[in-house]
Structures are given as C-alpha cells and as structure tokens.
C-alpha cells in the first residue's frame, strides 16, 4: 500500500511539472504581445517597453518559467494586471466560494445517486427503477445553467426561499452563506447525479449477477445483507472511476453556475480574467484547476486501492 502511495505521488509530481510547462508554453506561443493587447493599438512604443519590463516579458522564457514556479512554491502567484493586487489574495477569496460550492455539489450528487442507483437495481423494473430512469434521463438532457435559471425563478423569485444570486460572504454567518450556495450546488449536482445514478444502477446490476453473490445466497445470507455486504462494496469500484472523472466537472461546471448565480468564485474570476486578457491570473487559475484535477485523481487512485485488495497487491 505504501509503495502504491509513493509511486502515485511520484507520478503526481511529474504530471504537475508537465502541466505547468504546457500551460506556460501555450500562453507563450499565443499570437500577440500581451503588453500591446493590454494597452491597446494606440499605445506608444516607450510605454509598451516600460510595461514589458514591468511584466518581466523582456527576460528569456526559461527564466520566466522558473521564476513563476519558484514564486508558486513560495506562495507568490504574482500580481494581477487588471486588479492590481496579489493573485494569491484574489484566489484565496474566490476559493472560499468555489471550494464549498463544489464540495457541496459532490456531496449532494453522491448522496442522491448511490442510494437511488442501488435501490433501482435491487428491484429491477420496479417503481423506483422506473422513476430513476426518468430522473436520470432528464438530468442528463437538461444543462445545469438552465436548471439554475429555473431554480432562481421558482425558489427565489416565486417562493422567496433563497436569494436569487450573489454571495454575502462567510462573515455574514454560516447559514446565510450556505443558503446562497445551496441552489447553485443543486444545479451543479443534478446532471452529474443523473449520470452517477445510472452508473451505480448498472454496476449494481452487474454485481448482483456475479457468482459470488449466488454463493452468498447459497450460504443462507438474506437478500438485504447480501446487498449490503457483497453487492455494494463491489459495485463501488466502477462507481469510483466515474466519480473521479466527474470531480473535475464539478470544478469546471462551477464557471457556468457561478455566472448564472452571480457568485464571486474562481470560475467567475477565470471568466473575467479571460475577457480582460489578464495573463497572470489566467496562467495561475488554469494551473490551479489542473492541480485540483490531478490531486483529485491521486485521491481516487488511493480510494481504489482501499476498495479493491486486488489493486493493493498488484502495485
């Protein structure tokens, strides 16, 4: 097990290095001079040169890359060109919205999908199964920003239960902050929950047909204990794969949902930085999003090994 963790950690670091290099190079080869873009076409040559120097663009690419990475390792993400403040401060503020939002969405999605999927499979073609089929069909078909708009219309404008958008900040208290995040989290969670429910259902069905389930029944284990002790632990293995793939969607999907609900999150920051061509912020945010995905994948790999002893001994 320790070997597995070490080998996965090594590949995690290697992947991060390659990703940072790729991000840097892609922004490097993009056409256009960042300084010219920022100052517009009417800028004078000497102001351009001054800005280039301020941005450090006059130094060789390799030096800039190393400086970027060393800065990150020391907690310095550089200074935003448009906001004129440290990117680390910007990101920390926004993270306080995006991270809880994504985690809440993940929680809602799994809490919905796992029981529904297992229940549907346990009584195939029963009432629950049919309901789940309709739910998952709808959930997959309807995009999350549209669900978000409907939620705002129904729960906020009509019923007035939740704020229609915006975020009061965690200083305003736990409950108001959570209230502001709940609708967006559900909107973010539903499409993923629909997919996960389907996957859970089919994984469970497959395990129910396995030989060892028949063995358990032949020992005299009743249906519900068989489901609990034999079916679910095995069905979780393929479900974890899909969940791992989905986790990155939760962070990515946050961009859309944060815009619909007007939440000051990382996704909105990325969107604004793109519009304003704030290359410093873009570079850092892309790296942060990729870093999150890579770390999540690392955790999923470890989770796999915990679920499946066969993987533990193979590593």
């Amino acid at each position, binding site marked *: 097990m320790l*070997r597995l963790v070490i*080998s996965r950690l090594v590949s995690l670091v290697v992947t991060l290095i390659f990703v940072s290099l790729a991000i840097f190079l892609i922004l490097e080869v993009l056409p256009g001079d960042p300084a010219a873009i920022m100052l517009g076409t009417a800028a004078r040559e000497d102001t351009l040169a001054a800005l280039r120097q301020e941005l450090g663009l006059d130094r060789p690419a390799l030096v800039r890359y190393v400086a970027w990475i060393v800065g990150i390792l020391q907690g310095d993400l550089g200074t935003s060109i448009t906001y004129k403040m440290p990117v680390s401060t910007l990101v920390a503020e926004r993270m306080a919205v995006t991270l809880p939002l994504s985690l809440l969405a993940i929680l809602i999605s799994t809490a919905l999908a796992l029981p529904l999927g297992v229940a549907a499979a346990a009584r195939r073609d029963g009432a629950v199964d049919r309901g789940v089929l309709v739910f998952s069909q709808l959930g997959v078909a309807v995009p999350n920003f549209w669900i978000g708009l409907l939620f705002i219309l129904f729960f906020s404008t009509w019923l007035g239960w939740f704020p229609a958008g915006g975020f009061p900040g965690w200083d305003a208290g736990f409950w108001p902050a959570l209230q502001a995040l709940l609708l967006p989290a559900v909107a973010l969670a539903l499409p993923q929950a629909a997919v996960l429910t389907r996957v859970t259902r089919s994984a469970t069905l497959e395990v129910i047909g*396995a*030989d*060892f389930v*028949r*063995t*358990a*029944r*032949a*020992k*005299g*284990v*009743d*249906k519900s*204990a068989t489901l609990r*002790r*034999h079916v679910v*632990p*095995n069905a979780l*293995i393929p479900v974890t794969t899909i969940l791992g793939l989905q986790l990155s969607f939760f962070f990515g999907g946050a961009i859309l949902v944060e815009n619909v609900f007007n939440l000051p999150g990382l996704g909105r920051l990325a969107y604004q930085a793109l519009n304003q061509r704030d290359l410093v912020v873009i570079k850092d945010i892309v790296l942060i999003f990729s870093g999150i995905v890579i770390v999540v994948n690392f955790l999923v790999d470890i989770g796999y090994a915990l*679920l*499946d*002893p*066969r993987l533990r*001994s193979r*590593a």
Partner: protein
Amino acid sequence: MASPSPVLAIENLSIGLPALADRPHAIRNLSLSIAPGETLCVVGESGSGKSMTALATIGLLPHGVEVLSGSIRLDGLDLLALDEPGWCDVRGRDVGTVFQEPMTSLNPVMRVADQIAETFRAHRLLSPSERNRRALELLDEVHLPNPELIARAYPHELSGGQRQRVMIAMALALEPKLLIADEPTTALDVTTQAQVLKLIDNLRRKTGTAVLFITHDFGVVAEIADRVAVLQNGLLVEQGPAEEVLTRPQHAYTKRLLAAVPSLTPPPRKPLENEPITLMVDALTKLYGGRGWFSKGRKVQAADAVSFDIRRGETLGLVGESGSGKSTVGRCVLRLVEPDGGKIEIGGLPFSSLPQRSLRPHRRRIQMVFQDPFASLNPRRTVGRIIAEGPITQGEDPAKALALAEELLEKVGLPANAAERYPHEFSGGQRQRIGIARALAMRPDVLVADEAVSALDVSVQAEILKLIRELQQELGLAILFITHDLRVAAQICDRVAVMQKGRIVEMAETAQLFADPKDAYTRQLLAAVPGTDRMT
C-alpha cells in the same frame, strides 16, 4: 436402491424456461433420490438441465425460470412450500453448495475467513470470535496449508484449487445433510482435481453427508459416484449404480456418451519417418515480468529452452497444467508473443529471425485455433467475412476469398450458406468448425490448436477431433496440439511433450509415454486422470 428414508427426494419435477428459450422445459418429470452418505452423480452435456436441478434444490433458479410441478423434499421437508426466510434457513445449514467457478465464486473484496464466518453469521450461530476460530479449523479440515495466513488472504491471492477448498469449507461449515457440488473440479488441473475429489469423498465418509454431484465428465463419475443419473435435454434417460451404468449402459444416449469419452489407450501410430520436418523449434525461451519500477522481483520463466520438431502430417501434443508455459510456447511459435531467445523454422524458413515487415507475408504458414469458440469470433462480422479476412489481407481478391470461404465451410461440415450468417447463430461445436475453417483459409503448413476442444461437450469433442484428423491427412498439416486433457492427447497425438514450469520434462511417442512414463511428473499426471480404475 430402496434406502430407508432418502435425504433428498425429487419427484416429478418440471422446470419451465422463459418463453424465448429453445425449449419449453429445463427439466421434465424428473424423479431422483439420495440416501444419507450416498454420492449421486447427475451427468449430462451442456443444456441437459443438470445445473437447473441443483439451483431448484436451493431455491435460486434464475429470473424467469420456474418450477412448474412436482416436489423436492429434504429429509421430509417440502422445500417448494418454503417462503424466503424459510429458504434462507435451509440454505447453508441443511444444504451446502460448491459451484463450478473457483475464480469468481468468492467475493473479491472480502477476506477468506470473513466469508467462511458469514455462514455462521447468516444463521445466527456462535459469537464473532468463535466464528473466526471455526473458520480456521475448517480451513485446516480441508487441508489448506497455513490456515492463519489463508484466513487473512483475499481470494485473488489463492490458487484455483485453494479457492475451491475454501468453497468446500464454507459449504460444509454447518455440517449440512446434503452437499451439492456443481462441476466443482471442471476448472481445475488434473492433479488438483484428484485432490479435491478425494477431499469431498473423505468429508462425505466422515460426516455422512449425502452428495449431489453434477458433472459432464465420465472420468469424474467413475472416480466418485455411488449411483449415476444421466440427463439428456431435461429428461432422465438412465439411472443406476455407477458400476452398472459405466460398464453396461442401457440407454442409447448413455452408450453414445461413454463411447465419446476418449480412451487412454492410443490408436496405432501412422508411419511418419519419411516425412520432412515442417516445424523446428530450438531452445525457445521466454521470460515474463521483471520490467517496471516495482516488479523487478517477480519473474516467470514461461518457456525455458524448449526444443521440438514436428513432421509433415504429424501431431505433437503439448500437455501440462495451468501455468506450465504450454500456451506461451504456442504463442511464441506463432510470434504473437516475441520469444526472448531460440530459433523457429518453418519448412526451412527462419521464421524467428524475420523482421516484422517481412514476417507478415509468411504469417499465413502458421495458424491458430483458439480455445473459446464463443469469444474468438468477431460477433459483428459474418462468418464468410471472418474466414475471408486473412486471405484478403494477404492480397487475395475479396470475391475469390469469399468463394474459398464457402468451400472451406463445406469442408469442415457446415452448409455453404453459413457464410452469410453471424457467429451467434451457431453452437459451440459449429463455431469451433468455423475457427478451423478460418485457420485453413490461409493454407497453413502448421496449425497450433490451443485447448481447441476443451470447452466442448464430449460428443462434440469427438466430432471435432475426427475432423482435425481428417483434415490433417488430406492437407499434410503439422499440428502443435496444446491440451491439459491427457485423454484427448492420447487419441490425437503421435508424440507427446510434457511441460512443467516452462520446461519439457519428457517427450515420447504417445503409446510409449502412456505405457511407460519415465519422468516422475508424467507419472503423477497420469495417475491423476480420473476414472482410470473403472474405465480405460
């Protein structure tokens, strides 16, 4: 046999299949009984309904399959009248079951001891610590070495034979009145099979459990049965004491099945001395593993200086247990797996030293027939396309290749219009014929048959062996016949090479090898062939 009161009494049992099945009944009007301490073997080919009988007895028939009429009584208790909790009480406590597939019949994410202890738990017997202690004792009773270690292991860490012992420990944990064993040794090597059969028989003697033993293998029947019941398409055609059924079968079907069991006495040998050598293999070596950061320690010598040659029209058998390296040798000879060292020549052509590009046109000279007739044909292609594909990639005109495919289908005993149909429309034996036609389409000099008849029922097996023999005579093929089944080897091979741990330990003419084995391992293999006392 009129025993005082049978443990299991099945009377006039009929089991119905779902509407779309190929026949309306899995079992029709079946009556069987087993006395205490008796072993009844239910024999039949695939689809005979033997497994359905077992599943009906523990109330676990698959969805859509139902008991239509009749009764099943266990020690007087009417099983078919039970509700679900009643069934749960009977299963495991009164009836223990061992299934066929040791690889998939245990939960892969649960420790062995927990799975055995669960039998007690399900019946609310003993305390948790007592359950674990009993689990250890049971592992010892089924003669597993190092019970403490095995108890903590997960199923994937055990061999097939060890897993089957765990299954038996589990099935016998509560000392049931009846043990159902559904093909428990079919997936095991012969020496392991012999040990497991002996174990079941010893435990039966010790506990007096009645055994319902389901098998397709008459060798196993001869080894273990007190009485035999023969099923054909859901009908009981013959029943009686083992001795009688095996030596004086009454029903035509039983006679046919027994006649199809390959004899261990080889037929007279064909004269081959003047034929040229088609395939020459010299010092073939293959090492698996050893690459990757963490797996350096795990190396397997799958082929260790393996040398043999095969003449035109000759069949060399490669026999051995699983993991002996026989399939690796087959794959290396075809260069589906690249050997690490050694020489392969086909009709003088240095096959092993050809670079990949110049190898391709010569690939047609050596072809393979695979084991699994269900998985080895692309389900989305017509049979004609499957057979014609090889010649087309070698540059043959597609229309001509398809015409040739039809010819070949007739040659292997299928109608020419089979070319337009898909693989799923054929039975296992028919698919194996398609597999052979596919190999022959390349006009090979050498045929490698890897367990080509192992998945087939005996009667079908006999037909395919006959077909291979006829085609060999007609086309002068050199055949490398890989098998774990010594009976099959005795019937089809001119010479046999015995493999153990990647080496050929003995190679001799078939008759000589069976009559006078020189190597200790060969003798051990031959002794393990089931049913040699009662059958030839």
